[in-house]
């Protein structure tokens, strides 16, 4: 059952080296190198800002209820930015995590290798990129929104949790995608729609109907996009949010289910993957 942990034992150093290797593979051979990691999301962000703020001529201010029930407005650009940075990591780790075993098939079919570490280092390499984006975002937040504030340290709660959550998800998706390419295509299709169902360009805390707000708790992505906004934008503790107990219970229940589902899926498919890849 716990072979994933056995495979990670004594392999920590290799995981870091292989994560570094992933980055080199991705960015070596281009002139500005790792700068691409920032340029690409920045461009996407610009497109969203342009579409919503200029094109649709919608609200340039997003209204959010604070802990006292009053409404506070935030400029749409900084609002999207703080949600978009974790979204980039989440989207990358779901997609690259799911296809990680497939793209590293030589580690499965040619040598004896602790296969579950493939997911760990693939997503870790995305985390390095995420750190870079967070630094850029933080500088912008400091300039525009002021700070630093004590609430910013919630980053150190949300970020590791985010890594673990999507790593645990990949324990299921990566072996399943390796087994069946159709399964990967399903994930790929779901991902393109998931963006609009997550609170990246709007706030799921401030939905019109109460029941809708609760349904949005079931999307774990919202836990992190809202979390980052708690830490960097709203300047409040996550337990200050009135629905905090329900939100937390739903999130961690999903985490536990995914954890055991991942262990089970990895165990049942690990020995079959080499035969079908």
């Amino acid at each position, binding site marked *: 059952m716990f072979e994933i942990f056995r495979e990670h034992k004594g392999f920590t150093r290799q995981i870091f*080296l292989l994560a570094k290797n992933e980055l080199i593979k991705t960015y070596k051979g281009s002139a500005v190198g790792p700068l691409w990691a920032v340029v690409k999301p920045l461009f996407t962000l610009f497109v969203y800002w342009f579409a919503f703020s200029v094109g649709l001529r919608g609200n340039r201010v997003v209204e959010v209820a604070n802990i006292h029930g009053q409404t506070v407005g935030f400029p749409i650009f900084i609002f999207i930015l703080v949600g978009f940075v974790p979204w980039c990591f989440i989207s990358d780790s779901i997609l690259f995590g799911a296809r990680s075993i497939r793209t590293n098939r*030589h580690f499965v079919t*040619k*040598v*004896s290798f602790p296969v579950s570490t493939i997911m760990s280092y693939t997503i870790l390499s995305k985390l390095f990129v995420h750190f870079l984006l967070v630094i850029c975002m933080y500088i912008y937040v400091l300039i525009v929104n002021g700070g630093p504030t004590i609430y910013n340290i919630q980053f150190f709660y949300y970020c590791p949790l985010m890594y673990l959550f999507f790593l645990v998800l990949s324990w299921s998706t990566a072996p399943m995608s390796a087994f*069946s*390419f*159709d399964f990967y295509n399903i994930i790929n299709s779901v991902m393109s729609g998931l963006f609009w169902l997550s609170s990246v360009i709007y706030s799921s805390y401030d939905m019109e109907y109460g029941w809708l707000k609760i349904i949005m708790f079931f999307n774990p992505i919202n836990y992190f996009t809202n979390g980052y906004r708690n830490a960097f934008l709203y300047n409040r503790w996550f337990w200050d949010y009135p629905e905090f107990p329900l939100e937390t219970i739903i999130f961690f229940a999903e985490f536990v289910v995914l954890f055991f589902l991942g262990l089970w899926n990895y165990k049942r498919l690990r020995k079959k993957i*080499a*035969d079908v890849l």
Partner: protein
Amino acid sequence: MEEPIIIFDKVSKVYTLYKSDGDRLKALFFRPKSAKDHRALNNVSFSINKGESVGIIGDNGAGKSTLLKMITGVSFPTSGTVSVKGKVAALLELTAGFSPEMTGRENIYLKGYILGLKDDFIKSIEKDIVDFAQIGDYIDQPVRTYSSGMKMRLGFAINVNIDPDILVIDEALSVGDAKFKKKCKDKIASIIKQGKTVLFVSHSKESVKEMCPRCIYLKKGEVVFDGDTEEALKIYSEKKK
């Protein structure tokens, strides 16, 4: 001295063949109905002692590759147990696992880490590898600039220099020109002399005779004969007729 290093105990391997990709997707969630089973190995048992060199012969599809994959720890038996003690170096697909954007030297370390080696040890064999591969200053160039021969030589050099306990060799292996081939053969011979365990898969009777006193003859996933090479080859050519 008689210390078994590889033990196969009643090993069977069944591959499941799916009719289509759709069936494969279904098999993730339900028990497959239309899938066919292919039995690659059937109740295979043998043990190989430390220091032995054993040839494995048989026609295509006899289960040789499946057997080797289990020894290298890539594939797993459907039933029965496989136990392998020690570091295995496989001269099967030499260029597998190279990272094309990294230099040859970086790849030596990468491959070493994958095999679970420590920094100090890799450093100590680094020079031997570079010398053996004969790629000169190219060692600090990205592997994508290498010719296929250079890649092969580097892969071979890494595998034979990591000080393996068990060396698995596929005859079909080609490692460049005649001169380098000779060098490889000599290196393998010296590894055998050091008392390492060698498994040799081949179609060529001459090279099996030359290298291995013992032979395992596989046919349709079963061990037909296990013993003296001369006798194994005799049975092999008789059965072929």
